[in-house]
């Protein structure tokens, strides 16, 4: 597992910001990039609920 408590949170935050901004700058692939970026926090939660529950 990644040792630093901050590595994954930083990645998720960066993906979210890319997601928030991408669709503002145009349509088409930029919309898709924005869905991918903002899907990261949701996917991370789903992953934790499947894998990290104890």
């Amino acid at each position, binding site marked *: 597992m990644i040792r630093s408590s901050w590595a994954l949170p930083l990645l998720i935050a960066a993906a979210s*910001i890319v997601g928030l901004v991408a669709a503002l700058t145009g349509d088409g692939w930029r919309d898709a990039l924005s869905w991918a970026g*903002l899907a990261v926090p949701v996917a991370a939660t789903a992953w*934790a609920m499947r894998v990290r529950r104890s």
Partner: protein
Amino acid sequence: MSRASVRAWYLVHKWTSLACTLFLLMLCVTGLPLIFHDEIDAALGEAPTMVGSGSSGEGPGLLPLDTMVAKALEARPGEVPLFMAFDNESPLLTVTTGPSPEAPADRMTIQLFNRSTGMPAGTAGEGGVMDVILQLHTDMFLGLFGMLFLGAMGLLFVVALVSGVVLYGPFMRKLDFGTLRVSRSRRLKWLDYHNLLGIVAFAWMLVVGSTGVINALATPILKIWQMNELAEMTRAYQGRAPLPPSRYGSLDRAMAEARRALPGNNPQFIAFPGGAFSSKHHYAVFFQGATPLTERLLTPALIDAETGTLTDARPMPWYTQALTLSQPLHFGDYGGLPLKLLWAALTLFTTVVLGSGVYLWLGRRRAPLDQRVREVESGGRLTPVPAE
């Protein structure tokens, strides 16, 4: 991190959260349907669908603007025009009227028209359920005070988010990312969910929270623009009596003049004299930028409403541009349905973070502060014991 600083951040997190949670829960509950207001309006049959060239263009078959204003005033006799707004994709055009040029928002009527056919297509904001929800979300029916109050709650929310992330550090020191200990105690389960959902949704909550604060400041932001940049652009008109609506000149002539000043761009809306977006003597024609990237950055061309001549055209200053950019970033309506669904999911995450926060506080609020701080530092291993 030293115990003293964990303790200080704990207290900041606790008090800022407690102060805003109730209102934030209301904002989440009302915000959720607002994400889908287009879809809901369409399902309720309140959104007209029109086919044809965009009403913001100059294409053939679009009726003159003066005709559209006359039609709107025919339906609201005795009123004056306040705004006209355009659409890039369809001939939908809205005309806002009110009893006087300075009419407040709650006295305004927004009529929808098809600019190709000239046919009316209903009015917006007629007290439907979505309008009630929007008003609750914006100002709780308390006008400017309500808006500023919710803005202050948003500011507290931002401080709560930042302090929460600071506490996430010591909490997770010995835990793997995503740890969810659901089978030990209910408190530990919700503590882990609070931390996980809080950290994954942090960037989104920070952006939606702070753009909400900026939106809540819309009224003072526009006032500052009117008093500074706009006043400077219209200096020659200072001290003149407001132009009476009976002397408003042709809107089409004004639009042609504005297009000459800012060629190649499409207008987003026209503000008539006397309102928050113009002087007392001008049609302010707000143009969008020419590329998708700059489309949301508006440049007003100020046209003398009586003579139809250009007074000035300048880009809006940074603080009104910040307001303009804050709107999509707060509403989440700029990237199709998938973006809206993600927006809704993250709104639900926020609701759980708020709810679990209240639950965690309620459960151990009588335990000594030291123990509650130690719970954070130990990653939830040491549970505070309520004092008898």
